[in-house]
């Protein structure tokens, strides 16, 4: 086993990607709806658009999410810029209509939506998305990425830049282990989903997770191994792309044994992957105000609790 890398929030990984991007291209029109330091959308070398200063690449949209989406559509339609804009995932609510128009027109607009779950912590339920991944995944033409570590984040960014349409990057506030070895040249996120821990034909079950819950799924798999249960783990950062893979590939990834979905959001949509017999562990209610680690525990999204649920299911 290799040395453990430092934990990195995917919003931080996104900033690292932007640093590379902005030093390579001179036509960025980035921005945020007054959450620059939280979304991590502005690299140190970017400079802000001001009333008489348009030779710049960063837009302070103010607290105007709805307009930010529309303005990004306008920038994309005008042509000439790579455009992205940030806010909290939960406030995609305020720009739903603009996101929908991005999807309908297939404008190349990248929505950088951070603080993507109860992992946001103390700000509480008004700030914690629950239904938003479902809402966005249900929207045609929209690629919704929820990367699980720094490498997946870079891959998602790359795919978003290549896609002729809008993308959502749902990013974590909290630090996440880097489980992927970034030396490989393959963009695994380009498959939409793939095995991050694979017991081959010895697998007893599959845990499918996205984003910050992949780390928890891997921990759960480790725990289960002590129970002599072999749980393969799938990261599913982009459902839309995964859907486009061959049936064979999908079956190979998901397996035919018990499937367990883990995502700190609504269950809506998950049964396509976990089947009628599967277990979903996520958010049945709105969140709460507390430190993030308390919330994951409270809502049953810890490896301990997930292990228990799986054992409960297996033993009935």
């Amino acid at each position, binding site marked *: 086993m290799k040395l453990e890398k430092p934990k990195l929030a995917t919003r931080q*990984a996104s900033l*690292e*990607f932007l640093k*590379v*991007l902005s030093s*390579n*291209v*001179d*036509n960025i*029109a980035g921005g945020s709806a007054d959450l620059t330091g939280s979304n991590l959308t502005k690299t140190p070398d970017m400079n802000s*658009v*001001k*009333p*008489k*200063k*348009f*030779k*710049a690449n960063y*837009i302070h*949209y*103010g607290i*105007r999410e*709805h*307009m930010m*989406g*529309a*303005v*990004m*559509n*306008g*920038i*994309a*339609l*005008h*042509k*000439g*810029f*790579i455009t992205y804009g940030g806010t909290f995932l939960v406030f995609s609510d305020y720009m739903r*209509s*603009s996101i*929908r*128009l991005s999807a*309908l*027109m*297939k404008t*190349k607009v990248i929505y950088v939506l951070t603080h993507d779950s109860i992992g946001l912590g103390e700000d509480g339920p008004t700030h914690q998305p629950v239904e938003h991944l479902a809402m966005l995944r249900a929207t045609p033409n929209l690629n919704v990425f929820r990367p699980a570590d*720094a*490498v997946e984040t*870079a*891959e998602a*960014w*790359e795919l978003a*830049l*290549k896609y002729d349409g809008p993308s959502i990057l749902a990013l974590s506030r909290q630090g996440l282990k880097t489980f992927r070895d*970034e030396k490989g040249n393959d*963009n695994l996120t380009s498959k939409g989903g793939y095995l991050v821990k694979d017991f081959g034909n010895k697998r007893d079950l599959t845990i499918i997770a996205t984003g910050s819950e992949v780390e928890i799924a891997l921990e759960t798999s480790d725990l289960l191994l002590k129970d002599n249960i072999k749980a393969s783990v799938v990261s599913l950062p982009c459902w839309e792309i995964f859907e486009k893979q061959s049936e064979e590939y999908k079956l190979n990834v998901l397996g035919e044994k018990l499937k367990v979905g883990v995502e700190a959001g609504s269950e809506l949509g998950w049964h396509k992957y976990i089947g009628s017999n599967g277990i979903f562990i996520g958010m049945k209610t709105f969140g709460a105000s507390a430190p993030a680690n308390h919330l994951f525990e409270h809502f049953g999204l810890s490896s301990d609790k997930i292990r228990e649920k799986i054992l409960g299911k297996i033993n009935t």
Partner: protein
Amino acid sequence: MSKTSELNMETLKKMSNAIRVLAAEGVQKANSGHPGMPMGIADVATILFSKYLNIDVNKPDWPDRDRFVLSAGHGSMLIYALNYLLGYSDMNIESLKNFRQLHSNTPGHPEYGDTLGVETTTGPLGQGLGTAVGMALAERMSNAKFGKNLVDHFTYVIVGDGCLQEGISHESIEFAGHLKLAKLIVLWDNNSISIDGNTNLSNSSNQIARFKASGWHTQSVDGHDFDQISKAIENAQKTNKPSFIACKTIIGFGSPNLAGTEKTHGAPLGDDEVKKVKEELNWKSNPFEVPKDILSNWRASVERGLKIRKEWEDRFNKSPKKINLLKIIQTIYPKSLIKI
């Protein structure tokens, strides 16, 4: 930029009435749609398109063209009628007859990608205004990069009462005013009517004062007076602020029995009333026929855009920034950015 048109008032009126009649007939044929808005704003649109808007119908994606956004997207027949009159290659009489039919290029609301010259999809009210602010901002940011020689165009938007009630209009107005997006010109179809009836059912704002509060240049005109409209647009082009022109109009203008009422907003006028519109406007042609002289007037008006586009192309071909601009317009990304 603009010179006083050689077209006289009477000709302009006829050109404008062509929009009205085509809109009324298109909606009638589809038995569905919104005739009132295009009929009301026809005079404003005629001035804007025939005298000011720098587009080239033969090269609809010429980068330095002016942008036009119909934020009040339900008035889509305005665009389709105009595009036919201007001679866009994809817009013929059949298209107008197929308004709102499956696979036509004349869908119920303007859809980006379905129709040449449609710069953005509109219909959800207020979105067009926000999108236009984005276009106007991209224009300034491109201008800052490539200079006035290569990038220097206006963004014109027509908004309705609905657009201005939606919250997104506030966000857009404040932001555009703050950034002093001087090349953004917003024309308000101020007809005091929306679906539920007179707008005084739910509104009594002073829009001029409102835009002023966010640093806009503002004007009020009679939206059926060609001279006032022309002058206002010319003033707007000259200020160093974004411009708002309140155009007082009558919804369904030309409809003797229904003009000025919400009945013209979102339903066909009825066969009888369409006939009466044509009488009222002294319009003798058969359905979907535009008299040759009027069509020629419209078609002649596009020469202006063609010429401006060619001049731009000359400048472009001589410019050292050509490659860069092209590359950026095609939005090419570096191949491998994956290493972090």
